[in-house]
């Protein structure tokens, strides 16, 4: 078996009954973890009568796309069409990703490879703010956003995410392992900082960029703070907010169930695709994520 390394074979030889039992339990646990997600997929395609079936089922019997139809129709009949929320989310997520990648790669490169006064201070600030939960300072953030005059604009959604200590930290750790000699060789050949950055740093940090994209995507795409606090104008709110308004007080609404099931799947799919695309790269980046 080619995928078994020498080490693995020696491990397999030592496997006892208790260990194989453990593996089976572990598989069961993995299925349990996945169960709600399987349920999410099936739920979105259930017709209304199956959604309220008693006893409830996990797997769909007669799959139908009517939930999605209803979602789009319901939303089109509303004052603000569903597509508007979708458009807002795409614009916000897209721009945030671009900005975060540029800003944090630049910062990571400078902190990792340049020497300048206050460097340790900047690094210390980033380390402390790694554990920064925006929820704790929602009020001053709100005041700043409103004083900057960017309420009800896309900026209100995008700007607060640009300073991402986690992204900068991961970038810095990843760039640390690019050998200095490579950069020095480029410098001897007459390359400037920008040339080095674009031709050497960017291609070599691709795994870290992928990781930062996934993390940022998840945070921005699912964020509701921007919509609930920084926007009063309904046309500037995001998909996440719209979906949460559909799912709020679910217990009481019958027709809402089908809409919510479809909308929840729509919220989940882009995240899943991003992760499937970049999974290996993400683990590769995490090799260097250590805090020393």
């Amino acid at each position: 078996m080619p995928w078994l390394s020498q080490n693995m074979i020696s491990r397999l030889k030592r496997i006892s009954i208790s260990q194989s039992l453990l593996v089976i339990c572990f598989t069961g646990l993995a299925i349990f973890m996945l169960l709600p997600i399987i349920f999410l997929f099936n739920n979105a395609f259930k017709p209304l009568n199956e959604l309220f079936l008693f006893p409830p089922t996990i797997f769909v019997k007669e799959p139908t796309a009517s939930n999605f139809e209803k979602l789009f129709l319901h939303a089109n009949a509303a004052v603000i069409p569903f597509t508007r929320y979708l458009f807002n989310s795409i614009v916000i997520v897209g721009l945030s990703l671009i900005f975060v990648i540029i800003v944090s790669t630049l910062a990571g490169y400078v902190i990792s490879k340049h020497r300048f006064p206050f460097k340790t201070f900047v690094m210390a600030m980033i380390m402390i703010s790694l554990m920064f939960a925006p929820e704790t300072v929602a009020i001053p953030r709100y005041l700043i956003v409103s004083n900057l005059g960017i309420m009800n604009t896309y900026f209100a959604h995008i700007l607060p995410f640009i300073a991402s200590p986690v992204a900068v930290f991961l970038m810095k750790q990843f760039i640390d392992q690019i050998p200095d000699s490579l950069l020095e060789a480029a410098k001897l050949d007459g390359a400037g900082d920008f040339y080095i950055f674009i031709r050497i740093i960017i291609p070599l940090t691709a795994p870290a960029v992928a990781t930062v994209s996934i993390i940022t995507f998840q945070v921005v795409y699912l964020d509701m703070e921007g919509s609930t606090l920084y926007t009063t104008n309904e046309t500037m709110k995001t998909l996440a907010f719209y979906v949460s308004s559909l799912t709020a007080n679910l217990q009481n609404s019958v027709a809402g169930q089908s809409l919510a099931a479809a909308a929840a799947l729509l919220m989940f799919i882009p995240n899943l695709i991003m992760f499937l695309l970049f999974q290996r790269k993400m683990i590769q980046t995490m090799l260097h994520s250590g805090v020393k």
Partner: protein
Amino acid sequence: MLRNKTFPAKGPRFVLRFNSFLQDCWNARLSYLLLAPFLIAFSCFILIPVFMSVLLSFTTFNGFEFPTFIGFDNFINLLTQDFVFMKYTLPNTFKFALITGLGGYFLSFVFAWLIHQLPRSLKDYFTLAFYAPSMAGGVALSVIWIATFSGDQVGYLNNILLKYGLIESPQLWLQDPKYLMIVMIIVTLWTSMGVGFLAMLGGLQTVNTELYEAGRIDGIKSALQEVYYITIPSMKPQMLFSAVMTIVGTLKAGAISTQLTGLAITPSYSGHLMTNHIDDYAFIRYEWGYASALSVALLIFSYLVMRFCYRLFATKEGE
């Protein structure tokens, strides 16, 4: 040393020192330029809000009038007057943070370690399975878990328990103060395999496999000893990063009770956490000064926990 015309090399020693410092800063201007976008955003949305939070915590402020300075009153009220905080918020938060923080961290490590033992072809599937819940996010999550813990007999849990005769009548899982906390903990543990979990998976790959051979010669017998003496010390840096990520996750988790129950204040404060308390004072009562004092307390607390983690996982010289 290089000297620029801008800063003359004359005068007493401290002036010279200062000039040379300015020189260094000037020489590093390109670095600062490249760092500027991050630093500006960082100060605007992280640094200044934290400082404002600290300042506001010494005032009473309702969002309309100018804040008035009242000194330490907010903090004194917090410790002596706030009945809800002492009776519900604090115990709830401690209980919740201990179980989901420590438990989630422990589970992440165990699962990462188990996945690491699997053959390469299976690894990716298991990683996906365990990471998927944290991707599902609050919105998707509330659809699934609300259906599971729904209070009528159609709810999945009620249905199963009724079928096997374990309960007589459907339980209101999400409205009953007895159960809400447990439900919140289960749901949070389910989503706790996030970035920290991936960091641990990465860390496990960095462990030098030769160490295991060496360990066996030195008399390590069980897998448990292997983990304790070799694996964990070798991946301390990743363990620390993961710990920091867990702390952040635990702090953020207050929203979960609101998502599950659809109420800003949970029934008889049974799921009332620190973030709910802050939201309550900030966005329902508009007592922003007091809310700021609460968030400052939370920041200090989380900082202390982080210092503790650093102490615990600090890599010694030469490691």
